[in-house]
């Protein structure tokens, strides 16, 4: 039968045709819905994934010593990162990523969470400072997770390694507590100074991040750049520090724990500030490994993270006697000529107080007492005063306040007074006269920072000028690379009577010439070349029954050795304080360190200075230095 004659077939074919046009119509409606009604929504989505705003990290300024030698440099480094908008959400993906990169999944999840909540900004860094194997790993993992990218960013290099760890500090990623404290100031992922001058000088060193609008393809590769705001590098700056002198301090302390501070008497600039044991800031740039924690943070034995010159509180021992003498003279309880007899010990309030020389010094004037460091003489002075008299003098000459150095977390010296005792020991708030006797020789409740001590000796050297120690010397000029000297923080004048000053000055000179410090051959030899003044101190850590008992004690219970003074004797230019922990006599352990500093500063520095610091860190992936282009 001819199909053309079949009505049923024709009917059904007709219906089929209507159906096909209906199908086309349906598709048109679907496409009209997507392309006309929801067009702007999808256009936005397409734009969002193709056009990205990426921050450009600004390099921080370099840090130079006073001679322009680099202490902190920038190098190029590669980091494996995830841009903010690409942060994965799926727990499985995060877990797989953590496993592939050998990261802790829980920590990574937390981090991704906080970055997602924080919105726009620097990318999340998964692996820093990639080396050859790191790059290989990154590329391998990136093939599977295309939302990862490798970013070039400047990285800090601390050229002296341990040379000035505590001074410079280090940088790190801003952490959550900081962000919570100052949400307008910090952005998540931002690099900021965490310790030392990197922290206190953060605002001076940091640059302004730039950003670029780029077109990316599905793999996140930059296809086109729609324009960018360049990052403005932070300004490079000079520190008052002298790298050579710092090196001398480092070498002089060697393996001993302790602190060295050297101040420039002209303006209070810190020429050297060394804390031993030091740390290498380079090691703190990466996430801390357990090894690092063991070596540094959790080391309770030597406490390398404590910046001893400004955070170490030491009994000043005999170095404190100058303040006691000044208080006694100002109060008028003695004259410089008053002779006090030392029999090796003296009884106050029913208790024997011993002198360092058991046989006694005999009769001593003030200059002799300082030179010989006679304890009995200063017990006697203390017994003639009230503790608040000593405190008042300390306050007058700035010893009770922080020095105000531009480093974070400086500790305050502890000079006892009746008010202090009430606060410090509420259960036994009364001040006993016997306690004053101990304070007379810098023991008991007295505690000073090496920097505070150095500032007091700087005050003696300058006949009453209370300097503000500081590290910031000035910015570097963009064109000439020369120093643009900053105005130093102003010094305060104190009413130090020149007549009284002359006595103390003579006493300090005598210490080195004929007194306690003269016993050391190195001190004698250097003092012959560059006469200098200073005071030894031996601060008790524990109380001993007798010398034999002391000799048997473990090293960590031995006395701290101190030496504080200034040089040259007649026209002082620098003041210094040296503390060598558990090293015994100040004259034998601390004074030679000071002598070496004096020798370098006044002789070697001018004749053959030490070379600029050069770190042992060699970074094969960043051979070229990144000048901070301003």
């Amino acid at each position: 039968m001819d199909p053309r004659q079949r009505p049923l077939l024709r009917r059904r074919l007709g219906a089929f045709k209507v159906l096909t046009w209906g199908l086309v119509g349906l598709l048109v409606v679907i496409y009209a819905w997507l392309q006309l009604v929801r067009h702007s929504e999808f256009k936005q989505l397409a734009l969002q994934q193709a056009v990205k705003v990426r921050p450009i990290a600004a390099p921080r300024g370099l840090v130079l010593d006073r001679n322009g030698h680099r202490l902190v440099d920038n190098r190029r480094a590669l980091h494996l990162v995830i841009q903010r908008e690409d942060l994965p959400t799926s727990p499985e993906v995060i877990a797989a990523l953590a496993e592939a990169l050998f990261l802790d999944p829980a920590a990574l999840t937390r981090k991704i969470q906080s970055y997602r909540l924080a919105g726009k900004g620097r990318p999340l860094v998964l692996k820093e400072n990639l080396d050859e194997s790191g790059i290989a790993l990154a590329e391998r993992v990136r093939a599977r997770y295309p939302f990862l990218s490798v970013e070039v960013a400047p990285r800090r290099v601390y050229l002296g390694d341990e040379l000035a760890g505590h001074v410079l500090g280090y940088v790190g990623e801003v952490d959550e507590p900081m962000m919570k404290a100052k949400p307008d100031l910090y952005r998540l992922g931002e690099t900021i100074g965490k310790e030392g001058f990197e922290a206190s000088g953060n605002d001076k060193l940091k640059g302004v991040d730039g950003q670029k609008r780029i077109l990316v393809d599905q793999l996140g590769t930059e296809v086109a750049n729609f324009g960018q705001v360049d990052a403005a590098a932070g300004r490079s700056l000079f520190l008052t520090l002298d790298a050579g002198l710092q090196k001398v301090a480092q070498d002089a302390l060697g393996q001993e724990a302790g602190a060295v501070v050297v101040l420039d008497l002209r303006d209070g600039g810190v020429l050297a500030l060394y804390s031993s044991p030091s740390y290498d800031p380079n090691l703190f740039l990466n996430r801390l490994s357990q090894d690092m924690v063991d070596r540094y943070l959790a080391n309770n034995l030597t406490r390398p993270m404590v910046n001893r010159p400004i955070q170490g509180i030491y009994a000043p021992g005999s170095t404190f006697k100058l303040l006691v003498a000044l208080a006694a003279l100002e109060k008028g309880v003695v004259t410089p000529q008053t002779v006090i007899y030392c029999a090796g010990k003296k009884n106050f309030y029913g208790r024997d107080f011993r002198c360092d020389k058991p046989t006694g010094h005999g009769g001593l004037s003030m200059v002799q007492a300082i030179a010989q460091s006679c304890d009995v003489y200063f017990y006697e002075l203390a017994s003639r005063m009230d503790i608040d008299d000593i405190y008042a003098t300390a306050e007058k000459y700035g010893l009770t306040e922080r020095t105000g150095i531009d480093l974070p977390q400086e500790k305050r010296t502890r000079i006892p007074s009746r008010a202090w005792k009430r606060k410090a020991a509420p259960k036994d708030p009364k001040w006993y006269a016997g306690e004053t006797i101990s304070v007379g020789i810098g023991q008991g409740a007295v505690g000073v920072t090496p920097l505070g001590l150095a500032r007091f000796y700087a005050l003696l050297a300058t006949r009453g000028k209370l300097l503000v120690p500081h590290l910031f010397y000035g910015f570097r000029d963009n064109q000439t690379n020369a120093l643009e000297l900053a105005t130093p923080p102003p010094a305060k004048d104190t009413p130090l009577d020149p007549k009284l000053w002359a006595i103390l000055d003579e006493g300090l000179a005598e210490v080195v010439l004929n007194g306690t410090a003269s016993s050391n051959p190195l001190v004698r030899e250097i003092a012959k070349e560059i006469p200098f003044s200073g005071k030894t101190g031996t601060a008790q850590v524990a109380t001993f029954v007798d010398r034999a008992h002391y000799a048997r004690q473990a090293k960590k219970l031995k006395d701290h050795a101190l030496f504080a003074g200034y040089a040259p004797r007649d026209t002082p230019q620098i003041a210094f304080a040296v503390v060598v922990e558990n090293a015994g006599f100040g004259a034998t352990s601390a004074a030679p360190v000071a002598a070496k500093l004096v020798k370098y500063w006044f002789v070697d520095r001018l004749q053959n200075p030490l070379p600029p610091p050069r770190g042992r860190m060699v970074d094969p992936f960043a051979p070229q230095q990144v000048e901070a282009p301003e």
Partner: protein
Amino acid sequence: MRERLRALDPRLLWVLLALILLGTLTLYSAGRNTFQSGIWLKQSLWNLLGMLLLLLLATTDPRRIFRYSFPSYLLGLVVLAAVLVVGKKIGGATRWFVIAGQTFQPSELMKWVTLLYVSHRLGSRNADTVSRLELFGAVGLVVFPMLLIQRQPDLGMALSFLPILLIIPLMKGLRARWVVALLLLIGVGGFGAWKFGLKPYQKQRVLIFLDPSSDLQGKGYQVNQSRIAIGAGGLIGKGFTSGSQTQLNFLPVKTTDFAFSVWAEERGFLGVLLALGLFGLMLSRILDAAREAHTNAEAYFCAGAAGIFSLHLLVNVGMVAGALPNKGMVLPFFSAGGSSTLSFFLALGLIMGILHRSRVK
């Protein structure tokens, strides 16, 4: 030659040439700046080859072709069985032969061979009624190759056999209410079972049976990117070779399954209207051929071909818009691929031959 060219139906030819042009432009843009930058040329070669095939078939008496439908069908089954044994495994599925470095997918051709044979068989019987025997016979003829294909596995391809099963009995005279009742039963039963009868792990098994390579997250991503591309195209499109989704590779498999999204992004809603209009005209013309055909077998073949083309159109264009599940079904003349292209031309050649004969006699 001129005589042969005259055999080509002009209305169908112009629509076909227009679709080929659209498809070539799409592939040029989709392959640009990728390792497939030459794919439009390669596809043009297939198109050329297809045109020759079409010319050959259009000038051949359709009855001679129908005469070879049974041996072709048997050969097709053998080949489908063979591909399971010696075929090349790509992405977990064994669908391809490799001949001279060229992959060839026999199931593409088998679809049309099955249509040809089923049309032939049912066309030689009494019209306007469908006996149970005929119906079950047709079901057997279609389901057998479908099962072989599902073994590969390739659910999309297997499903594209369904129009044969549905349309030819309908055209022959199967009462429409039976079809409606059957569809309702399958729909309600399937929905009910899915909703209440099956436990989650059983559903999982069904899903895995239907699509063993299912990676929901991955395919969700693809369709999402495709929808963004389509929607971002707007009314007039981003312009030729200027679609960000296409050119920046956000759009996946853009030379095959998602080729239409490229067109939609770069040419916009107006371009979509043009393409869909052309497809509509093509389907209309194929159905005209069914109406004008001299034999029932020819009419069934044309109607079945319209069904298969419609299914491809619906599933592919609907899928890239996210309106239908992601089942790999290519869009004729847009998606690159030798086997599918040749088989579409083959079908159209036969249809043109039918049209030619209806005009001549």
